[in-house]
């Protein structure tokens, strides 16, 4: 197996046992970035010099007997919205407020402490507002399986870069599906953790009530390792949970005999394309063959939760962007400035009601659904991955409808704050990847990973790599 096809855990082990140097791994990624970047536009910036220097330091430390961290010498790349005081993040924008970005990202700090190397920053939708991967300022990010198709967004570069083996893992943010959608479109795993599981400190806010950092990776074991490093309470983030962080990797091997996999009988499967539905059904057969009990579940009021989430997101986005937008409207693309301004027209009482309803709706959802099943199984994206042209609606009247189709199965879980994992399960008739989504109780990431790991053990979807045409 070639170096780039190793998973994150495999390459970390290879570096730790000195079967390969970090410098060799970094050079492999840089060579691939050089080949793929003109086609994908997955990177906002490539940090070649600093990555090489960090790799050389990692190799020297290992040779000197310094105990390696769990990501020692492994190149990663993240959505360009995790702040470092030493640089200016683009945030996918033409002109971001200069005052933003003064605080260092806690998440990057934890990855640094684990020994990771940052090989670049990744393309994203402008200010993380967009599910397609279009970007008027940095250029559109394209799908590695076919460049005419979207990578989805808003963490578009994360899905594209990890799928194309340009980095061994990535973090993005998920406010309506912004990790799970690009993961699904590009054929990699994408985890949105429970809100509060991972610190928001030093990450550009779109809507702090709803935002959560999420993971892209090419194996379940990789997701477990990355989540285990960044999860846990952060004194810099009062929204972060103090609940103990489990050993996610240890939970993977327990199998899924008797695990109840719930299939929604309402809303989520309505309007799903036939080829997506077929792959979903095949994945359920695989899970049943592994010993899971597949059970029907009725889900309470999912049709309203996407809009409830929008009340929060647009109100908070308008509060954050309002002053800058008033003076710099020309620096926003038409769709993004209209979406950022939508909260200006949402009454404060409606925002407060959406906040007040949230704990009760969550409680009722969890009690109704997870009394009957351990995980929900549903689509991530109910349609085949569309093309850039099909979704290039800008600020036209069609934008709300196009966005609604893309986030239909993901945004409800942002309102609920529940953990959700997108798992590749094959390809649709257009040759693009598709996925199923697992959703669990709060802080049930270990259970989601356990189910996905069992499925990964009997399929090879995440091992398949896109070819450069």
């Amino acid at each position, binding site marked *: 197996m070639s170096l780039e096809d190793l998973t994150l855990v495999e390459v970390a082990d290879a570096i730790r046992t000195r079967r390969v140097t970090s410098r060799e791994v970094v050079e492999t990624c840089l060579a691939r970035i050089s080949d793929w970047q003109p086609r994908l536009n997955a990177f906002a910036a490539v940090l070649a010099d600093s990555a090489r220097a960090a790799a050389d330091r990692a190799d020297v430390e290992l040779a000197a007997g310094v105990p390696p961290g769990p990501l020692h010498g492994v190149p990663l790349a993240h959505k360009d919205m995790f702040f470092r005081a030493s640089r200016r993040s683009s945030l996918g924008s033409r002109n971001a407020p200069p005052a933003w970005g003064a605080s260092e990202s806690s998440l990057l700090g934890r990855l640094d402490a684990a020994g990771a190397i940052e090989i670049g920053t990744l393309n994203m939708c402008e200010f993380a507002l967009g599910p397609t991967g279009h970007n008027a300022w940095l250029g559109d990010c394209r799908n590695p399986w076919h460049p005419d198709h979207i990578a989805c967004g808003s963490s578009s570069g994360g899905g594209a870069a990890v799928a194309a083996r340009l980095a061994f893992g990535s973090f993005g943010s998920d406010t309506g599906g912004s990790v799970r959608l690009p993961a699904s479109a590009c054929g990699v795993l994408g985890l949105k953790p429970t*809100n*509060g599981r991972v610190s928001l400190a030093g990450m550009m806010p779109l809507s702090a009530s709803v935002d959560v950092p999420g993971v892209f990776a090419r194996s379940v074991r990789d997701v477990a390792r990355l989540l285990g490093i960044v999860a846990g309470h952060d004194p810099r983030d009062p929204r972060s*949970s103090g609940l103990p962080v489990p050993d996610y990797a240890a939970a993977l091997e327990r199998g899924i005999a008797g695990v109840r996999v719930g299939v929604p009988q309402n809303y989520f499967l309505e309007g799903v394309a036939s080829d997506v539905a077929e792959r979903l059904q095949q994945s359920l057969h695989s899970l049943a063959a592994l010993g899971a009990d597949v059970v029907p579940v009725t889900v309470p009021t999912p049709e309203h939760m996407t809009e409830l989430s929008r009340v929060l997101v647009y109100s908070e986005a308008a509060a954050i962007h309002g002053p800058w*937008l*008033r003076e710099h409207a020309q620096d926003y693309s038409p769709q993004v*400035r209209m979406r950022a301004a939508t909260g*200006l027209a949402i009454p404060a009482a409606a925002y407060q009601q959406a906040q007040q309803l949230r704990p009760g709706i969550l409680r009722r959802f969890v009690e109704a659904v997870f009394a009957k099943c351990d995980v929900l199984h549903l689509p991530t994206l109910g349609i085949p991955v569309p093309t850039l042209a099909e979704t290039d609606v800008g600020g036209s009247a069609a*934008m709300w409808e196009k966005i609604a189709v893309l986030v239909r199965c993901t945004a409800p879980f942002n309102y609920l704050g529940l953990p959700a994992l997108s798992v590749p399960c094959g390809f649709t008739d257009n040759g693009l990847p598709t996925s199923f989504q697992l959703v669990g109780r709060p*802080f049930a990431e270990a259970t989601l990973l356990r189910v996905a790991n069992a499925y990964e053990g009997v399929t090879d979807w995440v091992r398949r790599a896109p070819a450069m045409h």
Partner: protein
Amino acid sequence: MNEIDSNAVLALARAQGHDWIDVAAAQRIAAGAAAAVAAVEAILRQREAALLIDDPASFLATLEQLAEPPR
């Protein structure tokens, strides 16, 4: 019932100094805001008003209370 139409959006935009918002933008913004607010009203019509006495600050605590028990 909230009436969020393009005229209301234009008036709000002027009041808040967002002079870039024209009639076409106001129509798009009104469509998005109206749909979002309608969902809140639909939930409240489903006799969910009792939930309005919940403290929004309890959301993280609710997530923690409903967490999967350790295995």
